[in-house]
């Protein structure tokens, strides 16, 4: 479904869609005021889980259709045209796009698969995206993430499925910090944890 198609009809029930960390917007903003750390939610991004044989012609065609190749190297993100493709496993990727793009992107990928065995599943609401940015972003995450986040080891363009505190996340290194993709049911826990872990770094 797309946001536009339902937004109007839902309005009569007072609320439309709601992102998993919506309740944290004000506390994220307050925690970010000092500048050394920035916490925020990017709601409603399109997430498509794509599974295919990486060596198949379909995988190549999907990359071409998206304008972004499906990365074959573990832990790598490919980007272009407003899309990024995260390596999740040797036959599994997460295609990240803007709000409302799920249906169109799904069709594009299915068309590119052209009957080959490819799984495309809309998981946009399965996870939400939390931003942990600023000069102390690494320090905050290091309280709960066992990966080596040194820029030489995990710089922009890298991603990993790993643990943050006591929840699984997809961690993506971006220019000014990290995106933490967390399961929706864990979003409140992750938000509370990040707020607590950032106390010393709020500047």
């Amino acid at each position, binding site marked *: 479904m797309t946001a536009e198609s339902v937004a109007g009809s839902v309005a009569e029930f007072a609320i439309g869609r709601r992102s998993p960390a919506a309740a944290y917007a004000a506390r994220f903003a307050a925690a970010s005021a000092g500048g050394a750390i920035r916490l925020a939610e990017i709601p409603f991004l399109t997430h498509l889980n794509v599974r295919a044989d990486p060596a198949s012609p379909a995988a190549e065609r999907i990359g071409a259709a998206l304008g972004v190749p499906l990365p074959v190297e573990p832990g790598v993100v490919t980007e272009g045209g407003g899309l990024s493709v995260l390596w999740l496993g040797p036959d599994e990727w997460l295609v990240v796009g803007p709000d409302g793009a799920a249906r169109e992107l799904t069709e594009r990928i299915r068309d590119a698969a052209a009957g080959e065995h490819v799984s495309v599943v809309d998981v946009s609401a399965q996870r939400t995206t939390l931003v942990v940015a600023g000069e102390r972003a690494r320090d905050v995450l290091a309280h709960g993430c066992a990966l080596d986040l040194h820029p030489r080891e995990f710089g922009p363009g890298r991603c*990993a*499925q790993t643990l943050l505190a006591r929840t699984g996340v997809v961690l993506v290194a971006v220019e000014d910090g990290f995106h933490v993709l967390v399961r929706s049911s864990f979003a409140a826990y992750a938000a509370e944890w990040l707020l607590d872990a950032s106390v010393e770094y709020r500047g």
Partner: protein
Amino acid sequence: MLLIACPWCGPRDEAEFHYGGQAHVAHPEDPAALSDEEWARYLFFRDNPKGLFAERWSHAAGCRRWFNAVRDTATNEIHAVYRAGEPRPVIT
């Protein structure tokens, strides 16, 4: 906390993995053809050596791939990791 080298993701903390017991114990092709004893052996019997042991691990919190490792059960040293379906490497 062991450091286990996932064949795809590289070294990660043991906490990211699930243990899967002895490797190379295939599900029988035709269970109906087995005697009760043979079936019970598949269900309930596993090796428990002191020393090198080929065992299964899943990178549960990472890429979710199952793979095999040869670990020395006396020292916890992992001598090799290899992907599911690959033969057990010879450790010298």
